[in-house]
């Protein structure tokens, strides 16, 4: 063959394979409102930045008449490219090719790009759209999944791992996303479950739709398996690009630094705190009043909204923010909020992102559902994650910091580097009413008018203990600061702790209360 012939043969071979499952399958994909795998990669990455590998990989299945079946790129597109100029590794399952089913070579393409990512120290973004295991490949397909799960685990805490669910992701396939750091879902498009509605019906006699069982909304609101919810695929890709902007490429680096910016003037702290400490306020407004450009990128916004987690920048540097949200469930810690906070703290610690904790916590949520659901072991995750974290840890107590909640929310005792408190802080072993009832029980019972005496004692306790000064007198609060000094104190504290070093005892690994 001539040189020109070989080159034109290459282009024709390439054009066949890049068509994926062909026009009919592509039309079907579009008819259900989904983008194709190639369109998705193009939309996610910087223009023309995608470099594809393993385009000509073929499956090697011989059973069930598979030997003469060609599956373009074996149903998954892999490669690398850039997001806002920064390198990422990407794979996207192609539903138009045998339903995006996962066979051994398909899995090998994925694990190969993951190995690249870990070696080069760059994030991995995996776009999932697959009917599941390629049944014809039998146990080889299971081997494929297993290899991916192993890599997800080995890459955990080394490079950021992002999963995007843009179609079905069912059965064993869900565990790769579950092992990654952030899961993105899109309304009406994403479906995730271990067993589908039909099996649920046979086993439990329960009638439930696919959307109600494992749709996008359920995953972000109820199950907490997903972290980001979008109404369309383009919106989802914007969210991913924004997330990447806050993160370092690997645990060997720090997050990229931008130009410092002041918070927008529309958020002034003084206007945000209610006079009555029983009136809830939106902690996110406080965040916006403190951080650069009032820009707060929330993680798991819709799951356990009684706690907030997310990324911002202070003086140009990424900060992971955790806070109690009195607008929802009074801002208590419960099973879901504990899980959310602990996981976020561990991510920040793994990737050198300092932590800012904003405290307004009345305590833990009472109730049999919480106790029986294991709030003790879930709540312990927060203590574990904060204690374990060796990144800079700065804490600001705005209002309530009572009992176990005070300890858990990155107190000095869990080795916060600096703890600040506003004059409005109430740091005590428990709330005044509960405390007065216990401490002054005899006096209250013996009084002529017990109710009046109770009120008197509550006030006495409040005046004496519901403030930041008792904790400050023991050095548990490093500085009581005026609200308008907040950004200056936190900014300085982050600078101070930037090159912090903290030793840990030698061990294989700890045993967090999973």
């Amino acid at each position, binding site marked *: 063959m001539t040189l020109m012939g070989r080159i034109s043969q290459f282009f024709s071979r390439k054009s066949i394979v890049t068509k994926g499952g062909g026009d009919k399958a592509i039309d079907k994909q579009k008819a259900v409102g989904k983008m194709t795998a190639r369109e998705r990669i193009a939309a996610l990455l910087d223009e023309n930045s995608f470099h594809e590998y393993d385009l000509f990989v073929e499956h090697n299945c011989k059973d069930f008449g598979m030997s003469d079946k060609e599956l373009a790129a074996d149903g998954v597109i892999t490669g690398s490219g850039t997001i806002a100029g920064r390198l990422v590794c990407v794979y996207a399952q192609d539903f138009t090719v045998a339903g995006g089913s996962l066979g051994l070579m398909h899995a090998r393409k994925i694990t190969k790009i993951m190995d690249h990512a870990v070696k080069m120290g760059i994030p991995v973004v995996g776009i999932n759209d697959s009917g599941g295991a390629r049944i014809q490949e039998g146990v080889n397909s299971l081997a494929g999944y297993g290899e991916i799960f192993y890599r997800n685990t080995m890459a955990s805490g080394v490079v950021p791992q992002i999963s995007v669910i843009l179609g079905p992701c069912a059965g064993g396939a869900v565990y790769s996303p579950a092992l990654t750091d952030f899961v993105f879902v899109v309304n009406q498009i994403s479906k995730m479950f271990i067993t589908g509605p039909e099996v649920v019906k046979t*086993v*439990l006699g329960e009638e439930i739709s696919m959307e*109600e069982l494992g749709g996008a909304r359920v995953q972000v609101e109820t199950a907490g398996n997903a972290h980001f919810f979008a109404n369309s695929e383009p919106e989802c890709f914007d969210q991913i690009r924004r997330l990447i902007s806050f993160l370092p490429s690997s645990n060997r680096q720090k997050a990229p630094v931008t130009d410092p910016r002041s918070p927008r003037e529309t958020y002034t702290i003084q206007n945000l705190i209610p006079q009555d400490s029983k009136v*809830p306020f939106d902690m996110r407004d406080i965040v916006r009043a403190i951080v650069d450009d009032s820009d707060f990128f929330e993680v798991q916004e819709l799951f356990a909204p009684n706690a907030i987690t997310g990324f911002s920048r202070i003086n140009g540097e990424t900060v992971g923010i955790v806070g109690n949200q009195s607008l929802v469930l009074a801002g208590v810690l419960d099973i879901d909020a504990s899980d959310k906070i602990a996981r976020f703290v561990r991510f920040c610690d793994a990737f050198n992102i300092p932590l800012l904790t904003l405290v307004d916590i009345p305590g833990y949520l009472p109730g049999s559902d919480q106790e029986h659901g294991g709030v003790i072991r879930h709540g312990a995750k927060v203590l574990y994650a904060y204690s374990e974290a060796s990144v800079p840890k700065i804490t600001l107590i705005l209002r309530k910091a009572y009992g176990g909640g005070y300890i858990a929310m990155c107190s000095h005792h869990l080795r916060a580097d600096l703890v600040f408190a506003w004059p409005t802080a109430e740091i005590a072993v428990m709330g005044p009413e509960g405390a007065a009832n216990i401490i002054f029980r005899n006096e209250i019972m013996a009084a002529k008018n017990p109710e009046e005496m109770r009120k008197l004692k509550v006030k006495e306790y409040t005046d004496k203990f519901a403030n930041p000064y008792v904790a400050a007198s023991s050095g548990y609060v490093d500085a009581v600061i005026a609200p308008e000094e907040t950004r200056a104190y936190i900014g300085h504290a982050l600078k101070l702790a930037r090159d912090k070093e903290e030793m840990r005892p030698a061990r294989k690994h700890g045993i967090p209360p999973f």
Partner: protein
Amino acid sequence: MSEQERLSRISLENGVFETNLTAKFARRKPYERKDPRVVRAVIPGVVATIEAAAGTAVKKGDTVITLEAMKMLNRITSSMDGTVKAVRVSKGQKVSKGQVLVEIK
């Protein structure tokens, strides 16, 4: 009764199996679709104020009751646009989690 006879049956994706069930499994409740017309207490507490009496028009997200719990005046909001059909609690009443507070139509 032999051990064998006491076993229950459970059907999974890959067949029916004889086994013992856990108490937790036996107590499980089937999925219930949330009814937006019923506003329930999300947290145990005491009714502090009733913000929307029967007959009041409400929008989704409007506060219908404030519930004092965990040292906080929690806003309990309507999950739909409509009119308050009935308020099922009174001011100062102790309520448990999940208790019906207000019905919307």
